């Protein structure tokens, strides 16, 4: 192809009288073992791409994309974490010189200088020398940037409590849980104003009490907690007979499904839930 002065542009081109065979031509500037982009080089590149694609698919199959529980904007206790390629910025904002009153430093000034310098590199490093060792300032600044980003990312990963992070985001059973409102246990709960006051009318947690189905207590333990209280929960708030207390406790222990009376239904629900859980995992 004719290059440079007198070059014919594509829009200006005409079909040549004789068809040129598609053979590699000299790469006049750098003579050597050149080859045509199409099809020689592209075919080879595709082989590199295929190997890359296999690794990519293995990664995809081995590690499914994560999905935590649905966003709950009211859960202020959640420790946030951005995707890994923003961790360096996230970590930078934890240091004293870049946090609090100096947040502007960490959020704007330092990244601004770094990325601004990257953008303007051709004008900051104007010399014609291209070898890294012949332009020590540019090379060392880039290495410094690389090491900083690597270090910050490393520190961030190191300081993060990964177990707590996995736990706090876990999909809990109550994602699609429905309380069996026809159950005897639920009727008893509805008559207990002191329970509703903290745990909410739907038993899924309220002003100061947690979701009743989050914990894994059995009937006995639930009775124990209701009678004696636990943590901030006061003792002896239940009003009713022993039997009612037991029914309610069994209902709570059974994750809001009636434990007895309509056994068949409860079992069906249970097995369905189990099956769902199995597929979730």
């Amino acid at each position, binding site marked *: 192809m004719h290059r440079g002065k007198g070059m014919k542009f594509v829009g200006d081109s005409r079909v040549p009288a004789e068809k040129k065979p598609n053979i590699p031509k000299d790469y006049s500037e750098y003579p050597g073992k050149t080859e045509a*982009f199409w099809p020689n080089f592209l075919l*080879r590149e595709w082989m590199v791409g295929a190997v890359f694609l296999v690794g990519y698919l293995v990664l995809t199959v081995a590690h499914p994309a994560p999905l935590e529980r649905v966003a709950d904007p009211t859960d202020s206790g959640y420790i946030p974490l951005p995707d890994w390629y923003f961790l360096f910025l996230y970590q930078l904002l934890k240091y004293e010189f870049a946090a609090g009153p100096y947040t502007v430093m960490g959020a704007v000034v330092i990244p601004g200088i770094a*990325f601004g310098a990257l953008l303007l590199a051709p004008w900051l490093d104007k010399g*014609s020398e291209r070898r890294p060792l012949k332009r020590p300032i540019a090379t060392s600044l880039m290495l410094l940037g690389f090491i900083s980003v690597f270090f910050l990312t490393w520190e961030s990963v190191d300081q993060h409590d990964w177990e707590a992070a996995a736990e706090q*985001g876990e999909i809990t059973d109550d994602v699609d849980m429905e309380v069996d409102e026809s159950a005897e246990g639920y009727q008893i709960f509805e008559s207990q104003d002191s329970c509703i006051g903290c745990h909410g009318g739907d038993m899924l947690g309220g002003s100061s009490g947690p979701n009743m189905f989050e914990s894994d207590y059995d009937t006995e333990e639930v009775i124990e907690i209701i009678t004696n209280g636990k943590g901030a929960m006061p003792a002896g708030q239940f009003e009713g007979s022993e039997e009612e207390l037991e029914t309610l406790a069994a209902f709570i222990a059974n994750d809001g499904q009636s434990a007895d009376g309509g056994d068949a239904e409860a079992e069906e629900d249970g097995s369905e839930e189990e099956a769902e859980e199995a597929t979730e995992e």
Partner: protein
Amino acid sequence: MLQKVYDWVDERLDITPLWRDIADHEVPEHVNPAHHFSAFVYCFGGLTFFVVVIQILSGMFLTMYYVPDIINAYESVYYLQNDVTHGMIVRGMHHWGASLVIVMMFLHTLRVFFTGSYKKPRELNWVVGVLLFFVLLGLGFTGYLLPWDMKAYFATVVGLEIAESAPVIGGFAKTLLAGGEIIGAQTLTRFFAIHVFFLPGALLGLLGAHFFMIRKQGISGPL
């Protein structure tokens, strides 16, 4: 038959020079890993583009199921992940591709930097490349919110707090991205629009400029 169709079109539209211009350029020895194995560093740019193509294709399939509103977003992703045939693979590819594209682009940037390829006459191509870097980071940031799960929501809250801390334009930038004071329904639809329309548009335009320039100037010579 195919040849005849091609000839018929070519006779009228003269399409041969279009593709010959792309196909008929020589690839010099110093960037060809078949000649020097160390030249594999020149593959990073191509692999970045390869992952970008996969991201576009997998993203197109994801939008066949994804619903960008706060009631259904999580449910649709959950359904896609657990019930749709191969949904897990498509979402997995999009998820891991987002990381791979950043890695490959980072390696490509380092290669271009350390071979001094950004120097005259290729300054403009470097600038376009850095802009592509920002666009891809933006795609990563906006895409992270879309599943609307806990980590998505709170990472966005933090990200927008950081944006808000910028002087002068901070408040404006936050409102522009969040669509209001609260991070909620408006934010999700906005991030969806940015992730699916605005940034990919910018990405394709910049990629076109990137490739046009490399084709026009040729690859930089050996060190």
